[in-house]
């Protein structure tokens, strides 16, 4: 029992050490601007632009549900224009960043882990090193930077689309006028509502990309190893989003 526990703790500490070393190496590699600068633009398109359809899909349906759910909850007790307040606050502060973040943990996290994992097991990462490239500068920094910059942009668009679909729903299904919806939306609005969601999105992007890269580059074995690390990257990415979500709520709200 004691032995099993000590082995587990030792394993956990080793893992923490490996992650610490990885983060240190990535930070050091960020000095090689010439290596990652051009590659970051390519990754921004792959991570950001190509993630827009799924983000918009999520936002449209979340806006519809929020609008109907708030109207159902407020019935009689709260003026209906608070639907606008609820839709706006919920989309900006929580639902757009977290739901889009979770979806992108699957799309982006899995993509990065599978790509780098395949490169690892086919010795392409070793080949990069023998060509005098630092894999962290060439592979990790562009992805992390692109995800950190593009997640807020994707979340901002998702937020706008969610509010828009909430408004369309309210006007067509809830007998609420545009003026009332906008009145509710502007009520209690603070600039912090917006940047709070975007700061969260940045941290989600960085976490998902770092986790994807770490697991991808840690891949051992063949196809089975790639599959295992990809799954782990998605699960850890989703966990990181929920932990960071709580962290920012405690720190900033």
């Amino acid at each position, binding site marked *: 029992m004691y032995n099993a526990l000590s082995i587990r703790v030792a394993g956990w500490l080793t893992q923490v050490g490996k992650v610490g070393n990885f983060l240190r190496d990535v930070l050091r590699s960020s000095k090689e601007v010439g290596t990652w600068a051009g590659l970051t633009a390519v990754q921004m398109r792959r991570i950001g632009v190509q993630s827009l359809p799924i983000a918009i899909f999520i936002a449209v349906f979340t806006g519809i549900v929020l609008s109907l759910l708030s109207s159902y909850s407020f019935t009689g007790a709260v003026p209906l224009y608070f639907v606008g307040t609820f839709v706006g606050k919920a989309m900006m502060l929580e639902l757009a960043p977290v739901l889009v973040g979770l979806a992108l943990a699957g799309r982006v996290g899995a993509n990065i882990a599978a790509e780098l994992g395949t490169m690892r097991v086919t010795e392409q990462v*070793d080949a990069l090193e*023998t*060509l005098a490239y630092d894999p962290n500068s060439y592979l990790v920094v562009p992805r992390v930077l692109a995800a950190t910059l593009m997640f807020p942009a994707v979340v901002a668009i998702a937020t706008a689309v969610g509010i828009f679909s909430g408004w369309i729903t309210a006007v067509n299904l809830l007998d609420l006028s545009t003026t009332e919806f906008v009145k509710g939306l502007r009520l209690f609005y603070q600039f912090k509502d917006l940047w709070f969601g975007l700061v969260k999105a940045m941290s989600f992007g960085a976490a998902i990309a770092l986790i994807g890269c770490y697991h991808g580059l840690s891949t051992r074995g063949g196809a089975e190893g790639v599959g295992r690390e990809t799954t782990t990257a998605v699960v850890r990415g989703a966990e990181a989003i929920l932990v960071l979500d709580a962290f920012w709520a405690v720190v900033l709200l």
Partner: protein
Amino acid sequence: MIVFRDLYKGFGEKEVLRGFSLDVQDGETVVVIGYSGSGKSVALKHVVGLLEPEQGAVEVDGQVVHQLDRDGLRGLRSQIGFVFQFAALFDSMSVWDNLTLGLKRQNLSQREMSERARESLAMVDLLGSEDKFPAELSGGMRKRVGLARAIALRPKYLLYDEPTTGLDPVTAAVINQLMIRTRERLGVTSIVVTHDMTSAYAVGDRIAMLYRGAIRQVGSVEQIQRTHDAVVRQFIEGRPEAGADAEAAAAGGTA
């Protein structure tokens, strides 16, 4: 000159190298032979710092590889071409981009880079394949592109990891010819890791047999062909039925 000095390396419980020592003189081609999984590739990866030894060291021109800092290691790697077992071409890049990627680190002009890449492709008889992607190439072509990528760097040293494994005899012979041609034209020092004895006899100046983590015997091609060491004989002749006898002889110290 490359020196492997009393190298030890293991992975978990498994000890792969146990006191591996070998000198490779400038200008020669040393072939390291040994059973699959005996640690030949592991030894080779120490030369470019892809692996770090648990004990011992690899020295390249007097520099201890695992003690080099990032810049030192980068400088060393720019002098070494590595041809991987399965070519390790970047599958998202064309043949041309695979070739020029390493050259971008050498601060060459665009014209010099193009010339170097074209010359290297010509050396492996693959001019005209610049725009193809690795998925469109046969196994032999991939190996040749891998070789072209390595020689495009104009390295002082070339390391080949199983260059003929998985190829038909004719394509393997083509790769052997390319290795000889590369050595003649560029004057490189080479280490070839293989268990293909036809290739070993064709390209090697000396042959070293890695057995149980250390060098069992090293000598010229003729010396290896005439060896009385039972373990080496069994390997070079590919006689499975001699396995038990050879093991017993090795255990008893008979050679």
